[in-house]
């Protein structure tokens, strides 16, 4: 019996086009601007949504299949890691302080990215970008969850992880830096979100953020984190593609979009680079086995790769953000200035700090020949001397924070590394302080937004950072102790020096038990 000849099979691309395109329609019973109320208020003009290609071109069945396969592998590794005391394989428990910073500072951002991309996935009036954004939204909750799952095992054995991935980012002073970045992006409209997170964060800066942490994990024997990192790699590649696609789409749709997009690129490049201060510090100071210096990473991933990107965007009229001139100066300083700050405020941080040892200082001298010996080594030597005499230096007053990036005002003038940089703006009869020309510029452009900032130091002084029911008039009231309690920082366990910490002692004892017969 002859079967009837099969109809010609559709090609993959053609099939995908049918699967997703044409699903949407111009509504007529309800006006389009009510169905998509956020599509125009930012001033971006779009004439043809069909021109935004969905860069992923994944049907749901393919997505489920590929992602499930990755999940099965990832969780098999995490289970094996937990079963075999994988945590004892890291270079040193000191390394885990970088991971604490990641869990409390980065994982919560993955979560907010998930919600923000869901909003973008609802709000754009085109199927291609909506589906792409929703796929990124679901990927981002994957990342938040797999990070928590990967690091959950460390929480069982080490201090500083127990508050989890959301409590501290709302409260702790240095975590308001990444938090306010994402709050800023999500409280803007969907197009600015795409430039802020889709383009600047996921495309321009991901090699300086995600990659250093994952490479640090690989270099330091952290199999849990690096397995997550490898597993997320193909997701991240998709997200980078989406980020680039969206900016080209906006620029191609209407010439009036160029100045708006340029303004956002300038703003988010600087916002992002300020957040990266924490990563720079992690790379230069927190890894027992270092991957590369912050300065090297900046030169490779921003100056070289980013330069190529901006060359590519030049045909649309996009210029390299002005702040890059300052970044070229800053790359020699910011990681040191940040670590010096954390060293002084180790009592108010959810991870341990330490002074770099002689070998580490030599490495820093070699990596930063223009600045380290001149400006920073003497500081560490002085602190070492004080610590040896039993006078370990803690700074017990709280620092002023920048109104925009929320980093303590510790950065120096571009032309004088011995002078703290302050900028001031007046708005509605009040003075607002920023740490740099970049942040001042951002403030002056949207003062009504940045005056709302919840600045952790101001809030402490206003008495808003104590557990419910605290009575500040009670006898013997210790405000800092109450702040730590509200932060979920266990004083003496999670904070202070690594030297002499419970983590250090436990790791030595456990590794001893695992490798010796005594």
């Amino acid at each position, binding site marked *: 019996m002859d079967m009837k000849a099969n109809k010609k099979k559709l090609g993959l691309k053609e099939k995908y086009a049918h699967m997703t395109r044409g699903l949407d329609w111009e509504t007529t019973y*309800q006006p389009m601007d009510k169905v998509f109320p956020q599509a125009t208020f930012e001033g971006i003009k779009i004439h043809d949504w069909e021109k935004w290609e969905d860069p992923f071109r994944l049907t749901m069945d393919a997505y489920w299949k590929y992602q499930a396969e990755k999940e099965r592998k990832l969780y098999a590794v995490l289970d094996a890691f937990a079963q075999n005391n994988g945590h004892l394989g890291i270079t040193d428990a000191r390394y885990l302080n970088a991971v604490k910073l990641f869990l409390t500072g980065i994982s919560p951002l993955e979560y907010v990215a998930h919600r923000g991309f869901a909003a973008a996935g609802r709000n754009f009036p085109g199927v291609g970008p909506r589906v792409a954004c*929703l796929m990124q939204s679901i990927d981002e909750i994957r990342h938040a*969850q797999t990070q928590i799952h990967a690091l959950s095992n460390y929480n*069982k054995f080490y201090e500083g992880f127990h508050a989890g991935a959301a409590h501290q980012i709302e409260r702790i002073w240095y975590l308001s830096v990444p938090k306010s970045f994402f709050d800023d992006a999500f409280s803007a409209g969907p197009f600015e979100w795409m430039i802020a997170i889709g383009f600047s964060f996921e495309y321009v800066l991901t090699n300086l953020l995600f990659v250093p942490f994952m490479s640090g994990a690989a270099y330091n024997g952290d199999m849990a984190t690096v397995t997550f990192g490898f597993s997320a790699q193909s997701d991240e590649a998709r997200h980078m593609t989406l980020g680039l696609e969206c900016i080209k789409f906006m620029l191609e749709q209407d010439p009036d979009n160029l100045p708006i997009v340029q303004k956002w690129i300038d703003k988010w490049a600087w916002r992002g680079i300020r957040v990266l201060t924490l990563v720079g510090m992690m790379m230069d100071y927190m890894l027992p086995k270092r991957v590369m210096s912050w300065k090297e990473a900046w030169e490779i991933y921003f100056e070289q790769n980013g330069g190529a990107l901006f060359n590519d965007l030049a045909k649309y009229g996009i210029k390299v953000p002005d702040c890059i001139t300052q970044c070229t100066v800053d790359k020699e300083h910011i990681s040191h200035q940040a670590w010096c700050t954390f060293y002084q405020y180790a009592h108010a941080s959810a991870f341990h700090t330490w002074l770099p040892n002689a070998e580490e200082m030599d490495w820093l001298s070699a990596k930063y020949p223009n600045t380290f010996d001149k400006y920073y080594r003497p500081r560490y030597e002085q602190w070492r001397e004080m610590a040896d005499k039993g006078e370990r230096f803690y700074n017990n007053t709280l620092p002023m924070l920048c109104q925009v990036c929320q980093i303590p005002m510790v950065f120096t003038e571009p032309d004088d590394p011995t002078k703290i940089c302050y900028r001031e703006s007046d708005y509605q009869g009040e003075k607002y302080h920023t740490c740099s020309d970049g942040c001042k510029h951002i403030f002056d452009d949207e003062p009504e937004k940045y005056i709302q900032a919840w600045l952790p130091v101001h809030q402490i002084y206003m008495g808003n950072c104590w557990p419910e029911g605290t009575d500040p008039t009670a006898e013997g009231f210790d405000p800092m102790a109450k702040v730590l309690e509200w932060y979920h920082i266990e004083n003496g366990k999670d904070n202070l020096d690594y030297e002499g910490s419970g983590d250090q002692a436990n790791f030595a004892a456990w590794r001893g038990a695992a490798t010796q017969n005594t």
Partner: protein
Amino acid sequence: MQIDLRTVAIKPLRHTFDHLVERFGDKSASRYQEGSYNIQQEHIFHYRPTWDADRVLFDKKRTKIQMKDWYALKDPRQYYYGAYTIARARQQEAAESSFEMIEDRGLAELIPAELKQIALDVLVPMRHVEWGGNMGNSYITAYGYGTVITQPCLYHAMDHLGVAQYLTRIGLVLDGPDALDAAKEAWMSGAAWQPMRHHVENLLVLDDWFEIFVAQNLVLEGLLNPMLYDYLDADFSAKGGTAISMMTRFMAEWSAETAKWIDAQIKTAAAESPENKEQLSAWVKHYRSATREALAPIAQRAFGDKADDVLADLVSEFNARCAKLGLAV
């Protein structure tokens, strides 16, 4: 018999994170718990959204429904991303093998013409209804409150996209790309589809996310899915259209599974307070009649003169379901 491998045992300092210890005690938490509870920020936000200046980014006041603890709305399936994708991957594998068999053996050719036309007229335009379901659930993901309910709504949104794609594929198998054009044409201007399109568009402009949950997930899906995947499917199977049933297998399983999750949300929210119960019931009554009207001409095409009976049955089964959930409808 059992063998006993020895390992180096280290006593952990704690078993899980603070917020889970508070909630469930200091014991090992499940991956669902670790990945879902309290991972949304709650109290402190820096800037008012430019698109909703009266509220904060994650705000409990974006719905009339109120809960003392939003994390009471947990997912009985305990889906976190890994569990969800692994479950769907298994289902899609089964669906894929059905489609392959139908395509390879030309089984679509054996479907009686009349049934095939019903499938083209009724199932294929539903891809647009599914797209509406995707939009509603992505709205909830973005603006809802508490990860235990926003997270499964994203999975549900992606499922709707998946279902829209399976329905698309049914169109392609039965009649090639022309089927999609015909379905779009019917959706945009065919008389039978206008009440449904009107209804779906009304859901796209709702502001209260829990109202969308009720209107879309409980009521529209609660009437539509059984109509398509129980009643119509039974007709297909009985009259020689098993190939169509094979192609809707994913949806049949999916709708039964998701209904359990939806029920748990409604039941918990209704039990929380008399105000919630009253509001939920009022929404159900309103959307039940709107949905029924929107379904009537489609049921007519699907079931002919049995349409009224089928709709009456569907509504009475739906009412029984709501009564079990504690609603007064």
